[in-house]
């Protein structure tokens, strides 16, 4: 089989501990272009993959600040420039009355940033992905744990990598077609 037709090699494990230690060993063996798949979040996996900190908090912060400033400016502009109304003789720039909406806009834009930021960072929606070609991968959303070493990894070699994965005592190792 030519390497270009292979997405990678996927190994299946029974429990979170096996997956975390397998991922850790793969990382120590020098593999970098790999991903682990689990039916629920496993904090230790992130460390085992050598993944970096999420940029999401920064995105959410920027969203919140934009919502806050935008919400306030909208009210300021409407109340003092576009449509000044005299309500009980109060000043046009009556800032305390603008706080609730400023707050709501902050939360709204920050929450939108959190959700769409998370989807964007994860590259979702992604209707097709090669790992779905492995029929047993359907269990990744039930009770099985997978480690996939991708063919684009500089160290990847169909035979060598397969032998390496077998040393991690998986249930089985399958080739992922691209």
């Amino acid at each position, binding site marked *: 089989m030519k390497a270009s037709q292979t997405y990678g090699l996927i190994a299946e494990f029974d429990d979170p501990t096996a997956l975390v230690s397998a991922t850790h060993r793969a990382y120590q063996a020098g593999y970098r272009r790999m991903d682990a798949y689990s039916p*629920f979040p496993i904090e230790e996996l992130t460390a085992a993959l050598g993944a970096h900190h999420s940029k999401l908090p920064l995105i959410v912060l920027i969203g919140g600040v934009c919502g806050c400033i935008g919400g306030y400016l909208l009210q300021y502009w409407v109340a003092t420039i576009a449509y000044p109304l005299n309500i009980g003789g*109060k000043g046009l720039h009556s800032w305390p009355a603008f706080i609730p909406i400023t707050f709501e806009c902050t939360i709204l834009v920050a929450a939108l940033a959190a959700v769409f930021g998370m989807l964007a960072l994860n590259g979702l929606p992604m209707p097709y992905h090669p790992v779905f070609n492995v029929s047993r991968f359907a269990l990744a959303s039930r009770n099985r744990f997978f480690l996939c070493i991708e063919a684009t990894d500089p160290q990847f070699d169909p035979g060598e990598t397969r032998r390496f994965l077998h040393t991690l005592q998986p249930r089985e190792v399958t080739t992922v077609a691209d």
Partner: protein
Amino acid sequence: MPVDDPVHATVGAGTPAVIAPGYTFGTVTDKISSIVLTRRTPRGWYVGFAIAFLLTMVLLVSITYLLVKGIGIWGNNQPIGWAFEITNFVCWIGIGHAGTLISAVLLLLKQTWRTSINRFAEAMTLFAVACAGLFPALHTGRPWLDYWLLPYPNTMGLWPQFRSPIMWDVFAVTTYATVSLLFWFVGLLPDLATLRDRSQSRVGRFIYGLLAMGWRGSARHWHQYDTAYLLLAGLATPLVVSVHTVVSFDFAVAIVPGWHTTIFPPYFVAGAIYSGFAMVLTLAIPIRAVYGLEDFITTRHLENMAKVMLVTGLIVAYGYTVEAFIAWYSGNAYEGFMIWNRITGPYRSLYWALLFCNVLAPQVLWFRRVRQYAPGLFVVSLIVNVGMWLERFVIVVTSLHRDFLPSSWGMFRPTVWDFGLYLGTIGLFVALLLLFLRVLPMISIFEMRTILPSAKVDEDVREDLRVI
């Protein structure tokens, strides 16, 4: 006892446990997803849906007639311009608050017992907010022009009046609805992937697949996902407090005796959580019986919810006391009359009923026996639901019906259309909830997997990781 022995280990501190022993990743998944995918829909579902559907039709008739005739068909009059519709609005919004509290606040407080009730509590929030939104939207009189409430450039050159609490409400409620929907959807994403992978039908695979957006459980994705979920919880927590605060501003910013009081924001928020937990119990107890989910929604959950109800109920009781105390202590004749009118006036029976429902009846929750006895809790939760509706009615109507000038006093008597619209929203709420139970996993499957003992990574492997 080894922790990785799923048969004997129990989860979390305290007894009884948050999940019955003996479950594995596979069986938890199968048990929850089978309700949607394979198990026969229980007969109770059909009966409930038939009734809810009928009431939803009542809602449609009530709305149609309202649109044809105008809000004159309601019992509203001068001086009672706000009556059922605002009562029901506050009531539904309040019920929604428990969902957000369970999903966001309890997540931040790392309360594992939230896991099996957060999903349907969030669904309850969404549907309650949908019902709530109907009332002020219809009460504007010309609901087809409701978009005027939003700030957008228009040929009339008009802009909303941002100093009005009603505008704050528009922003608070729409933000709340949006954020609740996002939070719910993000929580559903991995479970939708589970349903996609387990559905036997082409249609099911297609629809769940579309909604799951290609979720594949990648560790890198989970990392972003967890961050997003925590951040959303952190954002939803102040939001939920702000929403009922803003709702209370609708009243507190006015000068009507009985409304113009500083205790309103905290008292409204506590009341919202109180009524919301009552509603979660009202729903959870029959649902777990009909679907046989006693293993997941255990006595521990019922007991904890009862405790939250007891605490928030006491805060609400404190609110009533302070209201009465300040009316006397302020020496303000109008405030004094307002509270006297509540206690002895034409609506006194409702005031006494609310004191019984919200203050007296829930005191039985001090007893562990009651907190652990599902039918008893169910009855208490129904009483509190009624009591909290009465509270809003008393606040809205008794304050308005006799204000400063006896010449402007009046009485409110609801018409059949007032009741039609309210019962209709109950029907819509239940119908939406039953549809949700039918097509989506009512318990968060992936979070249930995380609370199993076997979800823990062994200590020695964790040690290895710390080295790098």
